[in-house]
């Protein structure tokens, strides 16, 4: 297991504070949870705790961004995406301002706090906004790479983070190329995983290989812009696609994939793993994920059905 993604992200923020004098960090009274407090301790003059007021925080960041700073705003993903939507859309995106929107505790990772705190619509919201790039890291290393990438951009980037530790994936040195990352080559079926579901997909692929199902596993951190050509190349080869996301199946990663493939005029068999247009609930994280179909076993079964 890697260190928890929030710990990795907070430490990376503080590390980049040394080399990026334009980096300023804002938080909405959750800095000890998001771990942006690590930056705040190292650079108190460049850290602003805005209180529980996400909308204001996003626009304060926008004001800083117009004056040469590169702010990173931190809060729980659900509250940034929902309470800061107007500010992210009308100010950050409309004006193409360099602000990193770091949505912590994404997906179901705030598992015990329940549905009010579980972010299952943020990707759909963020990817709908012109000028916005959307990254969902699959492990802690990708979260660090996403932050480095975002700070090199001239416009807004949404990074959807996870609270917890997860299995470490092979390093992806070409992360910043915004391409599909192939973790396992195969011929029978393409499993396109988003975020922390990637490790589940890898485990499912191992199980399936023992059964003679040779799955290709892609991890796709960049939901927007999506590498449609890279995805199409795999699906053209396998003829089958299973998308997996820790998000509602409406409008998120799976939607982005199928929209891209529709324009490629591809014919393929398809299924989607995600939250089935419902609200989730309280529970231990792994058990909660599994209850909503997000486990290696459930994914393997969906692949079997798809290949039947």
């Amino acid at each position, binding site marked *: 297991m890697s260190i928890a993604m929030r710990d990795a992200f907070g430490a990376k923020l503080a590390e980049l504070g040394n080399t990026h004098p334009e980096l300023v960090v804002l938080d909405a009274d959750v800095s000890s949870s998001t771990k942006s407090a690590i930056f705040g301790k190292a650079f108190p003059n*460049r850290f602003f705790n805005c*209180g529980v007021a996400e909308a*204001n925080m996003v626009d*304060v960041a926008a004001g*800083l961004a117009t*004056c040469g700073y590169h702010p990173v705003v931190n809060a729980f993903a659900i509250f940034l995406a929902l309470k800061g939507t107007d500010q992210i859309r009308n100010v950050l995106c*409309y*004006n193409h301002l360099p602000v990193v929107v770091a949505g912590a505790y994404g997906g179901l990772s705030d598992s015990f706090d329940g549905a009010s705190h579980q972010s299952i619509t943020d990707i759909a919201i963020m990817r709908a906004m012109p000028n916005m790039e959307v990254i969902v890291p699959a492990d802690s290393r990708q979260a660090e790479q996403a932050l480095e990438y975002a700070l090199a951009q001239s416009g807004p980037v949404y990074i959807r983070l996870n609270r917890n530790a997860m299995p470490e994936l092979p390093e992806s040195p070409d992360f910043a190329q915004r391409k599909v990352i192939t973790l396992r080559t195969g011929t029978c079926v393409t499993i396109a995983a988003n975020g922390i579901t990637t490790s589940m997909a890898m485990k499912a692929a191992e199980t399936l290989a023992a059964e003679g199902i040779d799955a290709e596993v892609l991890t796709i951190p960049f939901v927007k812009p999506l590498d449609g050509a890279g995805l199409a190349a795999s699906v053209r080869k396998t003829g089958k696609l299973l998308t997996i996301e820790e998000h509602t199946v409406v409008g998120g990663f799976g939607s982005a994939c199928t929209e891209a493939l529709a324009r490629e005029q591809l014919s393929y068999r398809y299924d989607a793993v995600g939250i089935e247009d419902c609200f989730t609930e309280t529970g231990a994280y792994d058990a909660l994920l599994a209850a909503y179909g997000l486990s290696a076993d459930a994914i393997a079964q969906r692949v079997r059905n798809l290949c039947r």
Partner: protein
Amino acid sequence: MELDTLVQSLLDKKRNSPLSARELAVLAAAFRLTMFDVLHDRGTGHWGGASSAAELTTALYFNRMQVNPNDPHWDDRDRFILSKGHASMNLYTILANRGYFPVEDLPGFRKLGSHLQGHPSMKKTPGVDMSTGALGHGLSIGVGMALAARLSGKKFWTYVLSGEGCLNEGQTWEAMMMGAKYRPERLVMMIDFNKVQLDGTMNDIMPLDSLVDKFKAFGWNVAPRAFNGHDTQDILESFTWMDSDGAWPKAVVYDTIKGKGVSFMEGKSAWHGAPIDDKSFAEGRPQLVADLERKEAAL
């Protein structure tokens, strides 16, 4: 967009020095007439709130703000955020006459392909420091700009002009709390307090009195009295108060009249955003011309 010789001479004079209260009054009257003409010609836009702020924006851009129209992105410039972005015709008239772009562009207001969008866009119109339109954003953005000035050691001022609509939005009060926490220097919130909203009077829609008490309770340094937002001498006195010692950030309330200058439009919510029809134009324009002539005669 022809301006008379006297007005043109004032614009030329501005290149060298700030204008006096009487000179500002002439310019504001001339600009108000331009706004009226363009809004009538285009049949779209917001007259009421554009008119109520005519003297305020004229005084800022022709007496006070340090800006360079030849270099709209100059790092050290003073910033202005029209949080009540529906008064875009006001800002465009000011910016054009201040030299950011040709006044000949003004008739393109709200036309497809024009850089003069329905609400201000910083990506399209030279001199616009922040895109606005959705109400309530301005003060938060201003807090960010003023904090940036502090971080970078710059001395520029940030002015945010808000109306009742912005004050209806909860975000403005979030920004006030943050302003009081960090107390950024040279941040001023100016209220164009015309007391009329889109659907009716402020008291019918959402009573805001007492604004001064509210701002004080939120920890801001509020001007001790409301200033007359149509009296350029009084506006200059408010600028003197801004320059006086005292805690940051500062807030100033200006009493204004929505639709100022056309008697049958003044204080009427119907003229928040209604197109200026030909009959109203024919009846109203002579009043604005007479006001301009009076102010020119008083120079």
